[in-house]
């Protein structure tokens, strides 16, 4: 509750501080514009063109169902991976044996190309939601697992001893001593996994489903419709930026307020 209030109160100041980010994004758009003038509209349509196509897609109502389908798959796989990855990673981190055993496995999982998982998932689950959700899950899981394991491995024994001497009960040990430390490892992993989940979801849809942004991209590719392609990409990027900068980043700032002055 306190966190929610701090989040809401912090939004105006936070948005104001976002001008810098806005400026750098606009520079990217300028580069895009320049590219479209050099290479022509067929290769790279102008930003205005892409935005107009996107506006049409939204106005006609065609955009929302596709975006919702992609979001549903990406976020389901994402949620599953952060829950499983965090819990298992923390458990593995608490035991030296478990972390030594799991590290090579996780490295293999990390190194396996997502497209390979997608092919397997197609064989196992066929076309449908399960394939992109599974691919997202399996691609994000090792990332979160490693972060959680690292967090648990670096717990400070000196602080633990101090807490033991002061008779800190088990539950408070978790909330006041262990979690704040672990969260600072988990949050960056969660953020990285979020970006990953959208990419993988779109890629999986391109090959496995008949709806969602990935499927829409497949259609625009077959029509050689580069404006629509850029429109879909812009839409997904906007959603990703929205979730990351409106939800995760403020949360991270609030939770890690105690670190603030270290950086500056």
């Amino acid at each position, binding site marked *: 509750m306190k966190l929610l209030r701090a989040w809401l109160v912090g939004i105006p100041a936070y948005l104001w501080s976002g001008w810098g980010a806005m400026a750098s994004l606009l520079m990217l758009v300028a580069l895009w514009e320049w590219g479209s003038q050099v290479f022509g509209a067929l290769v790279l349509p102008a930003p205005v063109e892409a935005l107009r196509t996107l506006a049409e897609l939204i106005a006609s109502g065609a955009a929302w169902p596709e975006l919702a389908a992609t979001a549903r798959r990406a976020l389901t796989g994402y949620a599953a991976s952060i829950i499983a990855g965090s819990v298992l990673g923390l458990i593995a981190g608490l035991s030296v044996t478990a972390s030594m055993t799991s590290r090579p496995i996780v490295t293999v999982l990390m190194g396996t190309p997502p497209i390979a998982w997608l092919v397997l998932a197609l064989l196992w689950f066929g076309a449908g939601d399960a394939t992109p959700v599974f691919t997202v899950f399996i691609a994000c899981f090792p990332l979160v697992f490693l972060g959680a394991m690292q967090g648990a491995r670096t717990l400070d024994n*000196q*602080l633990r*001893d*101090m*807490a*033991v*001497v*002061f*008779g*800190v*009960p088990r539950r*408070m040990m978790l909330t*006041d*001593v262990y979690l*704040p*430390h672990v969260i600072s490892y988990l949050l960056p992993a969660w953020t990285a996994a979020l970006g990953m989940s959208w990419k993988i979801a779109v890629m999986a849809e391109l090959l496995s489903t008949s709806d969602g942004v990935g499927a829409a991209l497949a259609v625009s590719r077959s029509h050689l419709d580069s404006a629509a392609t850029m429109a879909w990409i812009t839409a997904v990027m906007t959603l990703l930026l929205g979730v990351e900068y409106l939800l995760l980043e403020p949360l991270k700032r609030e939770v890690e307020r*105690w*670190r603030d*002055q*270290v950086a500056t």
Partner: protein
Amino acid sequence: MSMLEVRTVTQRYGVSEVLRDIDLQVRAGESVALVGPSGCGKTTLLNLCAGLLPPTTGGINSGFERTACVFQQPRLLPWKSALDNIALGLKALGTPAGERARHARELALRMGLAGDDLDKYPHQLSGGMQSRIALARAFAVAPDLLLLDEPFSALDIGLKAELHALLLEYATTRRTAVLMVTHDLMEAVRLSQRILLMSAPEHAPGRIVWQVEFDRPFARRDDAWVYHNTAQLLATAQVRHAFSLAPVASPDTGGLYRAA
């Protein structure tokens, strides 16, 4: 009567023995200092007394109700404000939030922390402030036994004197027993009624080799008295031997040359 009792404790890590046949007692209200060179097992002994590790052989009995510890490093939780760090022990005891904040604030102000420092995080405060907070955290739970592991060793002499005064005032008014580890002889002379000398010559396990008592009340221990007694300690053969100092032969301690 409450008392801390360590009976013939021997401590091993794997095959290496770090403490052998340690016997010591700390009675209610008594202040005892453990001095000795680095690596003689002082900190291990203190950890044993704090219950952080079980002794390999021998027994440790504490009849004290509440033990608090101040460590060599402040060991503050970096994600908690100074005030919440002071109140940590109270929170562990289940004191309601309002009451523990009030109590911690009161204690902090009395210990020379400024009101606006209390909302800051540890990394925003100086080392001296952090030590003060660690001391306040220990005082906050009203312990009847305080275990101190060189808590003042990193402070300048002014700060040290100030924190010494705070400790003496607190411990004497509340009759808190103190067991402190230090390698600063002057600190030991100033703050304790009994000094136990530990020694671990050439990687042998640490043991208590000698002890001395001071009856003079803390209030009457002025600087001259402290300097004089520290100098005497330094001239004692056992002390010189334990700290690997070369023996001295001065007119009034001439006999000690042979003892060393």
